């Protein structure tokens, strides 16, 4: 579904942050991107999303070349949903208004149907429909921005640290929700994460980045078992769960 080849990218006229990254992700698959702070995970996701235009390389979605397509067109015409790492809600709008922003292209009845379905799915939001989004907690905002991306019915979902700042309980809830989306909708999900163990728990495959390159790629289950990997990238000998 997503095919990125030899991507080089950076900001303004600064040096390349990504120095030749190739990556792929399929339908009904969660691919997670791991790596230390500042290694370029968000930049990679933003490049695939269309915020940052690659300086070299190519990106295709389902065989269509989208290398130079900006984010707003990807969202409108290529069934992409993107959830940013920070600043992910409009504080002055209510929860419901925020979510409905994601459904602008849908017909009214379809919009209402999907909104109701999402409210059933995320009771935490349903109870606060008419609240201003600025009054939500960090975790609730994450769920809100996820719901807003989902209401349009994307085929590709790009998530930048969906578990950032969440309590363990909330984190599990969000990850369970993401896993459920893959299974029920058959979506292609690309997810940047810091909580490597948890992310590998639901992911199918993983890429580990280091200094703007893919240092290693493997099946999520293999990566979880590999002691060298644990030591190097996942922080010592700590066990999952």
């Amino acid at each position: 579904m997503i095919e990125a080849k030899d991507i080089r990218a950076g900001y303004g006229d600064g040096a390349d942050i990504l120095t030749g990254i190739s990556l792929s992700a399929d339908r009904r698959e969660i691919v997670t991107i791991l790596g230390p702070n500042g290694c370029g995970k968000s930049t990679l996701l933003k490049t695939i999303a269309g915020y940052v235009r690659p300086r070299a390389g190519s990106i295709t979605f389902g065989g269509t070349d989208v290398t130079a397509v900006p984010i707003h067109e990807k969202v409108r015409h290529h069934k992409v949903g993107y959830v940013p790492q920070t600043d992910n809600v409009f504080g002055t709008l209510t929860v419901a208004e925020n979510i409905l922003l994601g459904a602008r292209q849908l017909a009214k009845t379809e919009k209402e149907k999907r909104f109701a379905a999402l409210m059933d799915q995320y009771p935490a939001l349903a109870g606060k429909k008419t609240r201003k989004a600025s009054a939500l907690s960090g975790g609730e905002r994450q769920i809100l921005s996820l719901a807003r991306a989902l209401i349009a019915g994307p085929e590709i979902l790009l998530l930048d640290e969906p578990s950032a700042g969440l309590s363990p309980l909330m984190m599990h809830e969000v990850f369970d929700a993401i896993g459920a989306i893959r299974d029920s909708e058959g979506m292609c999900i690309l997810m940047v994460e810091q909580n490597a163990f948890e992310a590998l728990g639901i992911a199918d495959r993983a890429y580990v980045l280091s200094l703007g390159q893919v240092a290693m790629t493997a099946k999520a289950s293999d990566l979880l078992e590999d002691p060298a990997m644990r030591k190097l990238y996942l922080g010592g000998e700590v066990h999952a769960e």
Partner: protein
Amino acid sequence: MFDFFIHVASIACLYGVLALSLNLQAGFTGLVNFGLIALFGCGTYGAALASGMGWHPLLGLPAGIAMAALLGLFYARLGRKLSSDYWGIATLSIAEIIRISITNEQALTGGAQGISGLPLLFAGLKPYDGMARLALYVVVLALVWLFCQRLVKSAFGLSMKLMREEPQLARSLGYDLDRIRRVVMLVSSAIAAFAGFLYAHYLTFVGPDQLVSPETFLIWSMVIIGGVANNRGVIAGAFLMQFAMAYVPFIKDALELPTDFVAAARLIIVGGGLLAFLLWRPKGLFPEKVGGSNGR
């Protein structure tokens, strides 16, 4: 005294139109434009052009709006590459470059002397011409206000506010920021030029001194004092500022203060008023009403 009141109210109406224009840009869309006065200048020089070329005076309006549209689109174009603060400085510089070019150019614009002898609107209605003009300005202000209200309450108006609040997030929801910026600049530039055209036919004189950057900051103070992103508020701000400044000389006379006091007091009113509101009432006299967009 009554004539003076009519005069101040007339000017306040035209500044109200300018404040509405700036409010569309800076208030609702977050486009921090410090070069607004150049867009106004397109309107004044559009009027001057028609007069200089011997056209019908009304043709100055489309001429001014066309020039303002081009300049507005140029501003918008710069906004694609520059971050908000740099864009503000760029617009300020461009407005100054335009003013200085006009000052040093003779053939077309009359240079520093400007162009005088434009026809005064409703001159034939003496002695009621002042009131007739004021009535026209009030109608224009009301129509522009109505238009701005409808615009900011539309789906497009919501996209303006989303761009102001979280531009990157707005993009991820399919909003094309370049297009929003273009449309806002086009519409608001035309409004500013309209005010300039009326102003030129009010003073019957057009000159580069009308385009100095403190004028832009005066309009900014009207927007901030009246209430950023509140159309009613910025009109109130325009009237408040114009009347406060116009009545300074009377205070001077009453208190028997020296003549220097007038210029200084006007500066204090703009600067001090701005500061006072930023410190104690940052949302202005009429704060923005937020939300209530039902997610369109």
